[in-house]
C-alpha cells in the first residue's frame, strides 16, 4: 500500500475520480454487446443503471449528486442510442430514489456491503422504475401506440430487471472495493 501511494504521489487525489471514470467507460462499452448468458430475449442488463445504483448506495451521497450523475449517465446513453426520449430522466429518478430510499429506510451500509441480496433487490426495483419511466416518455411523445408500449414494457422491464439484478453484484462489489481502497489511499 505504501509503495502504491508513493508511486501515485500527487495523482492519488484523482484516483477515486479515475476509478469512477474508467468504470463508467467500461459500463458504456459493454452496453451494445450481447454476450452469451447476459442476454434474455435479446435484452441485456442495464449496466449504467447498476452502476448508478452502486454509486448512489454509498454513504454520504446527496440527492443532488445522484441527480447530476443520473443526468451525465443518461446523456451518455442517449449518445449511444437516440436522443429522444432522453434516458437522463429515468436515470435521474433512479439515482434520487436510491438515495432517498436509503436515507428514509436508513439501511445500514455494512449490510449492503456484505450481502448481495439487498443490492440485487434494489436494482430489480430500480430497473422496473427506469423502464416504466422510459415507457411513459414514449407515450408522451406519442409516436408509438399504447398497446405496443405496454407489450414492450412488460418484456423489457421484466427481462431488464431480472438480468440487471443478477449481474448487479458483479459490478457493485469490485467497484465498492476499489472506491474504498482509493479513498483510504487518498486519506493516507
Amino acid at each position: 500500500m505504501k509503495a502504491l501511494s508513493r508511486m501515485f504521489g500527487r495523482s492519488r487525489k484523482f484516483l477515486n475520480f479515475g476509478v469512477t471514470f474508467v468504470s463508467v467507460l467500461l459500463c458504456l462499452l459493454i452496453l451494445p454487446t450481447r454476450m452469451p448468458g447476459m442476454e434474455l430475449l435479446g435484452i441485456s442488463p442495464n449496466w449504467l443503471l447498476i452502476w448508478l445504483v452502486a454509486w448512489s448506495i454509498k454513504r454520504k451521497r446527496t440527492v443532488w449528486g445522484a441527480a447530476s450523475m443520473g443526468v451525465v449517465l443518461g446523456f451518455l446513453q442517449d449518445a449511444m442510442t437516440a436522443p429522444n426520449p432522453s434516458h437522463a430522466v429515468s436515470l435521474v429518478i433512479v439515482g434520487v430514489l436510491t438515495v432517498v430510499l436509503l436515507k428514509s429506510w436508513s439501511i445500514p451500509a455494512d449490510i449492503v456491503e456484505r450481502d448481495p441480496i439487498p443490492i440485487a433487490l434494489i436494482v430489480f426495483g430500480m430497473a422496473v422504475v427506469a423502464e416504466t419511466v422510459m415507457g411513459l416518455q414514449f407515450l408522451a411523445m406519442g409516436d408509438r401506440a399504447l398497446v405496443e408500449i405496454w407489450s414492450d414494457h412488460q418484456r423489457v422491464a421484466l427481462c431488464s430487471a431480472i438480468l440487471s439484478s443478477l449481474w448487479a453484484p458483479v459490478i457493485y462489489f469490485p467497484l465498492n472495493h476499489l472506491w474504498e481502497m482509493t479513498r483510504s489511499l487518498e486519506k493516507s
Partner: protein
Amino acid sequence: MLKNTIRRWWDLRLPIALLGLAVTAAWGVRQTQGAPLFEVYNWVSRPFQANGSGQEQLISARTQELQARLLESEAQNEKLKELLGYVSAKKPQGIVAPIVGRSADHWWQQITLGRGSNDGIKTDFTVMGPGGLVGRVVSVTPNTSLVLLISDPTSQLGVGITRSRNMGFMRGKGGNQAVMEFFDNVPNVKPGDVVSTSSFSQLFPAGLPVGKIVSVDMNKTPAPEAIVEFSAPMNSLEWAVIYPHSKEVEQKASAGESSASAGGEKQ
C-alpha cells in the same frame, strides 16, 4: 300336324320378331357399352341439366383462374428478373460490414456495424442482411455506423405485396415481426405472400425483399392489417451489406416522374 305348327308359329311371328329385335338391340347396346343408353339419358335429362349460362360461368371462372395464374407467374418472373438484375447491379457497390454491437438500450432496435465513413458509408444508406432488408444507417463515425432496424417501432416504410401489388406501410413491432397496414379496404393478401419495399418508400429503394405475411386481420379498422415476418433473421445477424442510397436522389427521381406524368397528361 305340321301345318298346324307352322300356323301357330305364323301367328306368333310378331312376338318372335319383336323378341329377336329386342335381343339384337340389347346385344348391340352391350357391344357399344351402353352408348345409346347414355345418349338417351342425356337427351332425357337435358332439360334438368345446368343451363348454358352456367356452363359459360364455369368456363369463364376457369379462364379467370388461368389468367390469374398467368399474371402471378408473370409477376414472379418480373420479380425474379428484378432481383437478379438488382443483385448483379448492386453487388459490386455493396460494402460488407460485421455487426459489432446491438442496441445500447432496450427500447430501440438498433445495430452497430464495424465500418463507417472511412469506407464511404453515409447516413440513409440501405442495409441488407442475408434474406432481405435490415435497416437504414442513421449515424456514422469514422469506423462504425449505427443502423436503425426495420423492426423498430419508429421506422415506417412503404411496402407492397409482390403477388397482388397491394400497397401499404409497415411499422416495426420489435423482434422479428412488423405490422403492415394496407391502403386498400379489401386487399388481395394471404399468409405466405412475399412483401417487398414499394416505390412509396422514400427512405428505401423500391423492390427490396422484406419478408413474408404470416397472418392477416381483415376486420381491423381503419385499414386491414397483416403481420409480416422478416426474411432476414434480425436477432442472429452477424454481418450486413450496405448499399448507397440517399433521400435526395429518391425525391428528385419521384419529382421528375411526377412532372413527366403531368406533362404526359397535358398531351
